[in-house]
Structures are given as structure tokens and as C-alpha cells.
């Protein structure tokens, strides 16, 4: 188990990923079974993730972050691009081979109130992945369940193992979901907005747990979030997404203290601060709403809302390029950034 985050090849390497949702545009289409309405949810996304590293994927709703996570795990089929997991190309594996691989990549969902079967006791929920993958026997599985419960700080395990989900609080339920994912000892952990439905006072506990898993167990963690501040506290690297494309990528401190892309700058500016601003309204708010992913603007997809866009931005679609003068890998996709 590697302890440092930097050694070796990345565990997960995503390159040029494209995913779309198709639906019928009108009644005529529906009858003719022509799905011509395409939502370009993920449009050429590339990033890497190493063991022991936490990467935060942030953006507003509709930017494609959840779709990216689901596509990386092949829960949604990519239309183009490649996904390499542990050096192996998994983009075109069939379902049977994938099922075997799922033990290594686990997903924790946003809604702790819906993600556990209400008729299953905690013990059964956590044991199920073990039974599905044929790990251990009755005795060893009980042992593993208790270990997982202890790992997520639900102590004493025997007290929690027999409960039903509705007898637990939201934070406890989310811990159970994490335990159920941990029990098969995955290498990649994807958390889709794990704390957004929880109270503020319990969020830090869950995030700290994820950070510990990352640091101590050397897991690679991909965290989807819309809360920049929470990601700032926990993730080493951050990727900002807009309309299906990563517009800025780099170490968290670097990106948030010196944002290069106008969208990142806007997100940082509207992020509420613990200390109330002395004069509210000093921030120029970004006008309009998030554009429709089925009608992506030509050229730079951000240009309709961008405060510094010019004619060049309406014509050319920028690619990620390195920010000069930074000794760390800080990339941005903006024509106006140096």
C-alpha cells in the first residue's frame, strides 16, 4: 500500500471522455424512436488520480460532474474516450468482467436517506458486497463487518449492526454507506456530494473520515461537490467543471488563491465567507443562468456569461494549458489567461 501520493503511475487515468444523454425531442421523434435531443453532459474530460490523493470535482448543477463520476465507473457508457484503471483499459470491458472489477471501485451517493434499503439491517447492508463478490464465509464476514463499522467510527459496532437505517441519523447513515463500500477494500472511492444533505455540524466528521481513508489507507478518492469551501479543506487537487468540460485543474490551494479562469474567479467570489463581508454587493455577480448542455455555445462555452470575453472567444474552443510561473501542475482552459 503506497503511503505517499506521488509515486508510481496514476491509479485512474481518464482521457477525452465523452458522455451524452439522448431523448426524443418531440412527439414525432418519440413515435419514430429517434432520439435526436442530445445533452452533452461530458464533453472531452481528461484527468488523472493517484493512490492516496483526493481530487475534488466541482461545478454547478448541469456541469456534468456526476455524469463524469458515473461514466468513469462505467455505470453510464462513454461515447468516446478512454478510462484506464490500474493500468488496464476498462473502457470496453463487458459487463461480466466489469462486475469483478467493481470491487475495486466504489461509489457513495449523495442521499443517505435513500441509498440504503430500508428493510435491511446495517449488518446486512455492509455484508452484502462481500456476499456478492464471494468473499469470506459467515464468520469472517461478521468480523469484517465489525471492522468496517469501527473504521467509520460507529462504535461499538455491535450496537449499530442490528439497527435499521430509519433508526439512524443522516450522518450515521452516510457512515454506514461508506462502511459498505470500504468492506471490500477498494482502491478507488468515488463520493458524489457525500455531505450536501447533512447538517453542517456533522459534515466535517464525514469529510475527515474520507481524508483519513485517503491518507492512511492510500485510497484514491474522487469527490464530487458544489461546495468550494468544503473541497478547499479536504482535497489536494481540484478540477472546476463547466458545461461538461474541465476549465481549471490543479492543486487546491493554488487554484483557489490564484484562480485563472473567469468562472473559477466568479465561484470563489460568491462563495459565502465565515466572516461576513464588510460591504456586501462589492462582488459583480455573474449574470444569467447556467447554459443548456444540449445547446453548447460555439467557441468557448463560457463566453456568453464571461465578463472578459472578446471576438476570439466566440470562435475558438480553448484547451487546457499550463499556467506559466507555477512550479505545480496548474492548468486552465481560457484564451485570455497567460
Amino acid at each position, binding site marked *: 500500500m503506497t503511503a505517499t501520493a506521488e509515486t508510481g503511475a496514476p491509479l485512474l487515468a481518464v482521457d477525452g471522455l465523452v458522455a451524452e444523454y439522448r431523448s426524443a425531442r418531440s412527439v414525432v421523434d418519440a413515435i419514430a424512436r429517434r432520439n435526436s435531443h442530445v445533452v452533452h453532459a461530458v464533453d472531452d474530460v481528461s484527468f488523472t488520480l493517484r493512490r492516496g490523493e483526493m481530487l475534488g470535482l466541482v461545478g454547478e448543477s448541469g456541469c456534468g460532474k456526476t455524469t463524469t463520476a458515473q461514466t468513469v465507473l462505467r455505470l453510464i457508457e462513454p461515447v468516446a474516450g478512454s478510462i484506464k484503471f490500474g493500468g488496464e483499459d476498462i473502457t470496453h470491458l463487458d459487463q461480466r468482467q466489469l462486475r469483478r472489477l467493481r470491487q475495486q471501485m466504489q461509489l457513495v451517493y449523495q442521499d443517505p436517506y435513500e441509498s440504503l434499503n430500508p428493510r435491511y439491517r446495517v449488518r446486512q447492508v455492509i455484508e452484502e458486497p462481500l456476499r456478492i463478490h464471494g468473499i469470506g464465509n459467515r464468520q469472517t464476514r461478521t468480523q469484517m463487518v465489525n471492522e468496517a463499522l469501527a473504521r467509520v467510527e460507529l462504535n461499538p459496532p455491535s450496537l449499530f449492526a442490528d439497527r435499521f437505517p430509519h433508526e439512524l441519523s443522516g450522518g450515521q447513515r452516510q457512515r454506514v454507506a461508506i462502511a459498505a463500500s470500504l468492506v471490500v477494500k477498494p482502491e478507488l472511492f468515488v463520493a458524489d456530494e457525500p455531505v450536501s444533505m447533512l447538517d453542517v455540524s456533522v*459534515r466535517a*466528521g464525514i469529510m*475527515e473520515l474520507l481524508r483519513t481513508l485517503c491518507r492512511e489507507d492510500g485510497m484514491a478518492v474522487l469527490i464530487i461537490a458544489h*461546495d468550494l469551501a468544503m473541497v478547499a479543506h479536504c482535497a489536494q487537487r481540484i478540477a472546476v467543471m463547466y458545461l461538461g468540460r474541465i476549465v481549471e485543474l490543479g492543486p487546491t490551494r493554488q487554484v483557489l488563491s490564484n484562480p485563472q479562469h473567469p468562472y473559477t474567479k466568479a465561484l470563489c467570489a460568491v*462563495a459565502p465567507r465565515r466572516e461576513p463581508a464588510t460591504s456586501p454587493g462589492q462582488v459583480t455577480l455573474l449574470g444569467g443562468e447556467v447554459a443548456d448542455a444540449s445547446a453548447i455555445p460555439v467557441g468557448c462555452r463560457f463566453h456568453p456569461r464571461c465578463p472578459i470575453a472578446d471576438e476570439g472567444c466566440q470562435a475558438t474552443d480553448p484547451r487546457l494549458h499550463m499556467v506559466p510561473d507555477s512550479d505545480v501542475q496548474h492548468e486552465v482552459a481560457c484564451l485570455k489567461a497567460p
Partner: protein
Amino acid sequence: MNAPLLEVRDLNVWFRADDGSRVHAVRGVSFTLDAAERAGLVGESGCGKSTTVLALLGLLPPTAEFSGEVLLNGTDIMAEGEDSVQSARWTEMAMVFQGAMNAFNPVRRVGSQIVEVLRVRAGLSKQAAQDRARELFELVGIPKDRVRRYPHEFSGGMRQRAAIALALACEPKVLLADEPTTALDVMVQAQIVELLRRLCEEQGLALLMVSHDLPLIAQVCTNLNVMYAGEIIERGPVADLYRSPAHPYTRLLLAATPDIVDITELVSIKGAPPALSRPITGCPFRPRCDKAFDRCENESPVLKTVAEHRMAACHLNDKVPSDPPVKVNP
């Protein structure tokens, strides 16, 4: 000193559960709201903040019982029950509900729903109501021609603006907002919050905003009430509160709130709020407090003044132990 516009005295709300037990959701809440004042009601899930605001307009479900007084311009609007509240609803005090995006009838045009309110409550003629609806849209920043659109043609942020327009229809003096920005994106949240602040300033409205989001509410409100387990446990001007909280819960809550620039070690508060179906002895926050001492076990702290314009319900603020009157809990 003018009399406050809205005064709530000793509000208590109980809910009756299926098995007959009662949940004491709001416990003796009292506060005042002056004209053009923007106050916030902050707390986490289950603390009773939404219930409090719903109670002010008499919008509690049939399983609820309540006691206390709600004085609007000196008159208790709850005195005659539904009849007295009905006349105050929307014309004096209006509300933007949680999940207001789903508050519109999906098969009717948005404009016609506002027109309906104007004709029924404000007695306007059809033409006058339609004009006023267009005015309201402009006020909240929606293009006037959208009046004839259906709710599904609006984005989330626009629907929220429409809900605010609906609330302002009869020119109330008090605007209650129950988590008006939940389920909206950060950018849109900032827009809505800015809109609320501007509207209240321009129209001289008093605003009572409920939220669980501490930093967000600081952008709108000047005064804050912090609720925990059905009670108000701290009150004061926003800046003072954030800089030097007088109650451990407020302090811990602030420490648990991440900040994008000031990256410090985040705190989480262990445990959970107390069950409100049983009477609480001593301080309700004691099991989770990091500074609890022996007095907190049996004596329930009273909300009292600890500094100018600052109130808190915590024994730690008492300099002289023999001072405070004891509130006895049955």
C-alpha cells in the same frame, strides 16, 4: 423608541405523533422585528425554525397545537384563530416557502396565479391585477413577457423570483422567507440573496429569513437568532455574533463551517440534538457542549442580555453565580 412591527411572545408548538406522544417542537420562542429590519433565524435540521415561521402565519398542520401571541402592530393576530390570521395573511405578512420552486400550479401560467392572488386578496380588477403582476415581475428581475409562461419554462432561480413576486403581491410589511435558496446553485443563490436584500431596503420591508447556512444568512441579515432544540439560544448583530459568539453551539457551528480562504481545521459536533418528545432537564446543548459544567446539568439557562444588543442562553456568561433566576422545567 417605536413599538416593534412584529412581536412574538412565548411561542410554543406541539406536534401530536401517530402513537399519541407529543413532540414539543418550539419551546417558548420570543423575538421582535422592527420595520425594515432584516433578521435571520438560523439552526440545523429539526431545531424548529421552519415550524416557528409557519406558526406565525397559522400554517401549521392539523396535528399541531400551539400557544403564545403573535403581535402585528400591537394586535394579536392569533387571538381569534383562523379568522384573525386570515385577514393578516399575505396583506400584512407574506411568506416565501421552502421549495418555492414547486409552489406553482404546473398547469397554469405563472402570471395568472399572481393575478388570482391580487384579485382575491387585494380586490383589484382583472386589468389592474395584470398590470400589477407585470410590475412585480419587473421588481424581482424577470422579463415582463414571461408572465404568460408556464412554471416548467422557468429555471429554478426564476421560479424562486416568481415566488418572491407572489409574496410581495399584496404589499405586506413583513416578509418571511423559509430557506429561500435551498436547492439553488451558488451563483443563483447569490443573486436571490442580493435581490432580497435590495427589495427589503427599497420597499422598507421587514424580513425574517430562515436558513441553515450561516455564511449565506450573514449576507442578507443584520441581526441573527440562533435556534437549537426549539429554543432561541443566542441573538445579536451578525458581525458581533460571528466574531465573538456567546454560546458554545454558535461557536462550534462557526468552527464547523468551512471558509474558502481561511483554511483551518474543521470541527464537527459529536452527538445529535435531543429528542423533543421528552422534557429536557438542564441545558439542551449540554451533552454536546465542550464547556459544560455542573450547573448545566440541572439548571436550564435563560436567554438574557450579555452585552449591548446581545443575548445568549448559557451559564458561561454569568459572572456572578447567584444572579440569574432559575427557569424550572417540569
